[in-house]
């Protein structure tokens, strides 16, 4: 490494390798992702583009650096399987025997059929779940496998599955964030569907979320003297928020857009790369 060209060559090769790895290959693999039918509801395309106002809201989110405190990436540790018994079949004694042999409790013929559908095996890995399901099926029972995502983020209620590349394909600026000063927002639209809550929370976070350390975004709102009638857009009382006497608080267009963007954030749709069984799924949902 005594001479300039050698050093240059080394740097060139190392950087080319990393460039090919983390710039070129991701672009080849992910750069042209399109809408895709998801695995559970075949007719539904995912993701649906965001409404226009929400797309403007993304710009407000970017301009005000929301991503410095909020991530949009739900982490998932793994997937566990619940085996649901949907039908005890005609030979419930045999079904009970299968369950008893697998040491899943002590069942008798009639007690197996009580309270269906019920989970007979919870949080199993996919292999033992399929073995049990096959055995139950052989004994004449109807079974269903339910996929449940696991991990701290999911248990915290930030989402039902991990966030994947597909969730972002329509966003002009992708901001998955790098810090969680506050909670993850990947599914905040599901958690907080109320637009008024979102707006009041932006105006004064502590009013709806007691002791919240989030800064206020008052500059997105306008304080106006109350006229003859209240404006339809004005913030409505919620939590400890009440507009000051004789005034009303109106969201500026940026605030409305940001709230629309926040309520559009939802990434719980089951996908091939992140399968799950939605909790409200009907019993005939195909198990993957």
């Amino acid at each position, binding site marked *: 490494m005594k001479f300039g060209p050698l050093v*240059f060559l080394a*740097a060139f090769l*190392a950087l080319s390798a990393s460039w090919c790895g983390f710039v070129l290959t991701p672009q080849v693999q992910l*750069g042209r992702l399109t809408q895709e039918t998801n695995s559970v509801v075949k007719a539904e395309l995912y993701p649906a583009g965001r409404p226009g106002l929400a797309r403007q809201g993304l710009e407000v989110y970017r*301009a005000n*650096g929301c991503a410095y405190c909020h991530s949009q990436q739900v982490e998932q540790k793994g997937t566990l399987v619940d085996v649901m018994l949907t039908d005890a079949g005609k030979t419930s004694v045999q079904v009970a025997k299968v369950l008893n042999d697998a040491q899943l409790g002590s069942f008798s013929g009639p007690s197996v059929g009580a309270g269906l559908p019920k989970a007979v095996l919870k949080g199993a890995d996919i292999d033992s779940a399929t073995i049990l399901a096959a055995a139950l099926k052989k004994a004449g029972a109807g079974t269903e496998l339910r996929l449940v995502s696991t991990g701290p983020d999911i248990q915290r209620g930030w989402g039902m599955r991990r966030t994947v590349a597909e969730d972002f394909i329509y966003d002009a600026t992708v901001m998955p964030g790098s*810090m969680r000063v506050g909670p993850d927002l990947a599914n905040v639209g599901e958690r907080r569907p109320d637009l008024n809550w979102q707006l009041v929370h932006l105006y004064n976070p502590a009013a709806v979320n007691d002791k919240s350390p989030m*800064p206020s975004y008052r500059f997105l709102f306008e304080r106006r003297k109350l006229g003859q009638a209240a404006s339809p857009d004005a913030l409505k009382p919620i939590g400890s928020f009440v507009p000051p006497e004789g005034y009303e608080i109106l969201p500026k267009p940026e605030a409305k857009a940001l709230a629309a963007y926040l309520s559009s954030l939802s990434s719980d749709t089951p996908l091939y790369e992140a399968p799950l069984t939605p909790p409200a799924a009907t019993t005939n949902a195909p198990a993957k």
Partner: protein
Amino acid sequence: MNATCTTSSASDSISMADIDASCRVPVFKLFFCSAVWLVIASVFGLLASLKFHAPNFLADCASLTYGRLHPVATNALVYGFGVQAGLGVALWIIARLGQTKVSQPWLIAVGSKIWNIGLLVGVIGILLGDSSGFENLEIPRYGVVFLFLGYLLMAFWILVTLHHRKERAMAPSQWFLLAALFWFPWIYFTANYLLLSHVPVRGVTQAIIAWWYSGNLNLVWFGLVGLAVVFFFLEQSMKRPLHSRHTALFTFWTIILFGSWSGIPVSAPVPAWIPTLSMVATVVTLVTALSVMANVQRTCAGGCAQAEKITGGKFLTFGTMAFVIAWVMNAVSAVPGISSITNLTWFTVAQWQLNIFGFFAMTIIGAIYYILPKAAGMDWPYAKSVKRHYWLAALGVVLIVLPLAIGGIMEGLNWRKFMMTDVDVARGTLNFLRISTLGELLILLGNLMLLANVTVLLVRYAKLHFLPVYKDAIAELKPAEVKP
């Protein structure tokens, strides 16, 4: 190769004072501007930090919201101080080691001018809400163009200076600087072109490229330049070459081969191979930290006190230690199991601060304290404040990094307690953040001392060299007595 022992070898060699004098224009310009940006960075960092004491502080002004103050602080620190002062120190080291005068010093100063215009425009853009939304790349398109051109102008003439070196064989510091000079325009152009051009890449590829850029900037660029400075001054103060060039070579290779793959968080919403590869590379950078530690320790051979004797030497020692700790923190926090706790918490901010401020900025500040008096040919006006600045900055770094690291680990553990509400977890970090505000304040005070010192030095220089010329020029001429 040691700069101090080769001057007498050739009869045509240029004296050290001449070399230092040839650096004067660009080094004055680069160091003064970077000292200003350093103060700006700490003022904005302090303002952003105050938001954690009072969430409604300055809430009526869009430009002063946390999400705009914070990127201004980081951009001022990284581009205003880091890259700019880094190039200044690189220039001086390259001229010194190469025993050659700087080529086109005025053009380098012009490059710095363009760079500063771009940065100023960019920072104003961020304050007005034009941030690009990508971390470390927030400067909007119209600022980036200036930054890129300014960099090219500066780097080109630094490379020409390197090319004119008398001793063809390169010292370790020179490898590191040469690689870094090429590295930045490539990553900066790639990231900005693919993210901010009229047809940017789509979807999470954007995020991957932004992470890739940040990893390359924070670990590779700052690592290469900072270590070049550390190695150079180590040789300088110990008056002997590095203990092992081979270990330095090993350090070099591990940085460029593995550092360049780091930076993608484990939870990234991308195909699993990407964070996995990044995790492996990041863990491997542990050997980089260890190899630097071993090399520095052997070179000092127990006499580390000697390394601190040069002006600014304490900063360099602190920077070296911070490098090792920051890189170990980075490698360890990539290990699966640990990463799922530290990822996306204040721990990562602590690591970033330790790497950028504790290691890089401290090292470069030390170098500035050493170089500027030599380039100016005069001593620091407030020599005692160098030591005071050191203690303020060292204490400041500790008060930022330690609380944030502990707070970050607690935060990561608390996110796993499902009974704790989101607000409670967030509030759990507040006291740690409030201690770090004190650190920001100390750092600001120290940076003001640096700025005062640099400004007064330049004013004195101007008084000494320009004032007589100016006075001569405007002096009233007495009519010559004409003798018949």
